[in-house]
């Protein structure tokens, strides 16, 4: 709750709305005890007194009634009706929506078609029809406004509920022996309430306007009772001669609706989990760089990462995702980068082309040199010219990296024309050839398919084709087969291996699977806690791991053909990168660790086989 208020008031406009609305509500509540004239006391001798007259601060209306008093009583009534209508519409709509979304099928179909029918009428016509049937009166206007708004809530809540019902915790509740009523009440409803609150807070203003509209037409509050709408309606005839009688209630409506909407928006933002972690902001086109000095260039190579450091800054916390990673990629070489989640392997890969989202990502040190040219801090135009052209990426989930609304052939053609001055037809022809290169059967027909029409394996082939579109020198593949089935994974790995040999591609292959690394990579680097802990030729490293982490990680992965057995687990959890221990990050989980391991920085030692350990398993 405190967090909620904090978030709410971080938004200045919402805070302003809350204050204005608060003042209005307090005044409306206090109206009966304020020293005001009776609102309905007529005095025709004093009609149309201007504001700031003696005894009547806001003047009087056409019957000589005190406007101040009528305004306060009218505001009180309008607010009450608006809130009541929102509450009624919200509860009724939410009930319908939750039931329809939860039970689905026929119930959903029938109720939602009913709701659709309600929505088919223009709302004011529907409200007029309801009032015409029930007769004019404030209560009936309230009912009309509420009924007209039920569909909005019902549709909204139904969608949210349908999403929650398919979540696994609802199945879990069912397996725990809960019935439908109990699941609805204790599992579904608590997750829907924030949505109901958001929908209500953003519609109250609208409801107040609608009731005012009905009263203005003479269908809401009946004379002499004042509400903001009827005050406006009565003042209409004197709009020119006594404009203050219209301006006063009009200004009040403006204030109320504006403050309610500002506050409602604030409530929505504060309750929305996506916005909770901070104001939503579009990431910059390249990762922000805050680097004191670039390390000296040592040797040349195709791609050299030199003591790269990337951090995420969220609030006061600093997540040191990559801590001085050095890597080297030669032409035609395949290097595996292996590690568990949170080890920094993906962030390392994304930092190369400045693709880490900023904010919160910041590159704080090191260099990435492509043919000796430093890419860290390079201007956006230069990075853009290199992205996809010389260094291309393949991502884990091809369904989320391909645009769902464009045909894959067009997406491939776009990737080509982004870097090469070729015509549309030529680009399309190349796209089909690329699909053929990645062994997609019937490529000309498949180029016209949408991503959802392809299987996961085929989509990943399209992802590879897109990476190949501009004949890059380097491909960075971030767990490209993790989402695929084993038989499809084998196909995709074989394809990558063949392409690399036939085109002389250098590949940086990120994975958590030792089997894949051993089949594809020449060299491998193992990451832990944002650092490379061991590096070397794949066969040597896998046969005789030197770092205790590598050895134990290999030991805890079951291997096919090993038979039934107990696995050698590593106790404990990987370190949190916002709170890395001094010295070796693996020390708390390591049985060989001694005091020296926890004391200070340990260097990555060695020439071909490198290991960052004071007491390695073997001397490489």
């Amino acid at each position, binding site marked *: 709750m405190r967090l909620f208020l904090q978030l709410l008031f971080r938004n200045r406009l919402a805070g302003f709305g809350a204050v204005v609305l608060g003042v209005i509500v307090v005044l409306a509540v206090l109206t009966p005890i304020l020293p005001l004239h009776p609102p309905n006391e007529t005095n025709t001798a004093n009609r149309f007194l201007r504001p700031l007259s003696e005894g009547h601060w806001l003047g009087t209306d056409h019957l000589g009634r005190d406007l101040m008093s009528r305004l306060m009583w009218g505001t009180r009534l309008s607010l009450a009706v608006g809130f009541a209508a929102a509450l009624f519409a919200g509860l009724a709509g939410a009930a319908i929506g939750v039931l329809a979304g939860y039970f689905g099928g*026929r119930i959903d179909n029938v109720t939602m078609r009913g709701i659709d029918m309600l929505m088919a009428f223009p709302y004011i016509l529907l409200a007029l029809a309801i009032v015409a049937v029930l007769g004019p009166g404030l209560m009936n206007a309230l009912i009309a406004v509420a009924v007209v708004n039920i569909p909005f809530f019902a549709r909204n809540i139904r969608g949210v509920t349908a999403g929650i019902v398919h*979540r*696994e*915790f609802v*199945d*879990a*509740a*069912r*397996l*725990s*022996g*809960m019935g439908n009523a*109990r699941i609805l009440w*204790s*599992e579904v409803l*608590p*997750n829907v309430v924030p949505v109901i609150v958001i929908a209500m807070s953003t519609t109250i203003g609208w409801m107040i306007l609608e009731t005012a509209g009905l009263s203005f037409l003479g269908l809401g509050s009946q004379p002499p009772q004042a509400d903001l709408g009827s005050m406006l309606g009565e003042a209409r005839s004197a709009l020119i001669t006594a404009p203050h009688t219209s301006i006063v209630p009009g200004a009040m409506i403006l204030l109320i609706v504006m403050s309610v909407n500002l506050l409602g928006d604030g409530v929505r933002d504060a309750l929305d989990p996506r916005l909770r972690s901070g104001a939503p902001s579009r990431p910059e086109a390249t990762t922000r760089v805050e680097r004191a000095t670039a390390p000296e260039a040592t040797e040349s190579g195709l791609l050299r990462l030199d003591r790269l450091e990337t951090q995420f800054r969220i609030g006061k916390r600093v997540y040191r995702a990559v801590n001085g990673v050095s890597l080297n990629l030669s032409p035609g070489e395949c290097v595996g980068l292996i590690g*568990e*989640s949170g080890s920094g392997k993906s962030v390392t890969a994304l930092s190369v082309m400045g693709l880490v989202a900023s904010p919160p990502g910041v590159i704080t040190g090191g260099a990435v040199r492509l043919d000796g040219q430093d890419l860290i801090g390079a201007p956006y135009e230069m990075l853009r010219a290199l992205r996809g052209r010389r260094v291309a990426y393949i991502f884990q989930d091809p369904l989320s990296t391909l645009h769902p609304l464009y045909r894959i052939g067009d997406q491939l053609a776009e990737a080509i024309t982004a870097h090469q001055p070729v015509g549309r037809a030529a680009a399309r022809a190349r796209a089909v050839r690329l699909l053929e290169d990645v062994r997609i*059967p019937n490529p000309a027909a498949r180029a016209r398919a949408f991503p959802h029409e392809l*299987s*996961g394996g*085929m989509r990943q082939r399209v992802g590879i084709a897109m990476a190949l579109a501009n004949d890059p020198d380097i491909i960075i593949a971030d767990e490209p087969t993790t989402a695929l*089935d*084993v*038989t*499809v*994974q*084998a*196909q995709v*790995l*074989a*394809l990558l*291996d063949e392409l690399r040999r036939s085109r002389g591609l250098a590949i940086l292959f990120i994975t*958590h*699977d*030792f*089997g894949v690394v*051993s*089949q*594809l990579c020449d060299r491998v680097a193992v990451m832990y806690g944002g650092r490379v802990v061991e590096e070397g030729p794949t*066969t040597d490293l*896998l046969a005789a791991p030197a770092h205790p982490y590598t050895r134990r*990680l*290999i030991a*805890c*992965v079951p*291997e096919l*053909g*090993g*038979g*039934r*057995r*107990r*696995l*050698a*687990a*590593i106790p404990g*959890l*990987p370190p949190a990168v916002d709170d890395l221990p001094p010295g070796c990050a693996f020390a708390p989980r390591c049985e060989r660790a001694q005091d020296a391991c926890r004391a200070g920085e340990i260097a990555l030692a060695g020439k071909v086989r490198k290991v960052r350990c004071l007491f390695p398993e073997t001397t490489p």
Partner: protein
Amino acid sequence: MTLALQTRDLARSFDIGRRLIGPPRARLHAVRPISIQVQQGETLGIVGESGCGKSTLARMLVGLVAPSAGSIEIEGRLLDRADPAAFGRLIQYVFQDPVSSLNPRKTIRQILAAPLRHLRGLRGRELDARIAELFAAVSLRSDFLSRYPHEFSGGQAQRIGIARALAASPRILVLDEPVSALDVSVQAQVLNLLADLKAKLGLTYLFISHDLAVVEAVSDRIAVLYFGALVESGPAHKVFATPRHPYTKLLALSAPVVGRPLGGAQSGELPDPLNPPPGCAFAGRCPHATEICRREMPALRAIEGDQHAACHHPLAP
């Protein structure tokens, strides 16, 4: 040995494009009639790729999905109505994604209390004692009980998921990819915990996974599913070492193994589920397929000893 679980021709089909009135546009056979038997105290591994029907099978076994045909017997008792509450005391389920299977707005204590209250009728002090016992069984600290699910790592959340499944003291656990969302170092911890619990409580496991090595490491017997049907079953040490069905062989060859060159890169994909072939579903990808394979669906038959395969031309060992 007594039978813990037995299914007879258990099948499930889904209607596609259901209309308000009248027959559906198409019918998808997610699970074709499957008969399996699991002995008390055994671990049956079920492997298959996405779309092979392994999750639908698992959900039928715990009563979350009603079968369209066939029967389920648990310890000799016929459970014919899909009612998770009736199933819940005998058979429970551990979900793949540990975090999304926990309600984000409930504390761990509330989550664990639900099955105890509703399936076992525990209240008050008994309830608290049992929760503490469960938590100790999955080696978690008891001060975690008042926290919310988002505060836990994947491995811890999966321990909580296991504790919840064990709460109602079931005889059988269906583990649906219980470690595939976890990191390898944590994966081994959870697998070892499962092995310890099984030994201590005398449980029977159905272990579903797409990871052949994990299944082989934990199972007594293995069943291989392809396109909704059982294509091979047998003792764990034999199924991948000497596969009899060409699909099992393809699976075993495709698994990346350290020190083995890339292999099994055979083209081809699953048949269209809405328009299944009349014969063997694997015939389109099978190097040994002949005329009869494309015409007639092979039945599951014993090949040698306890090893069964549904193939017209089973492989020699």
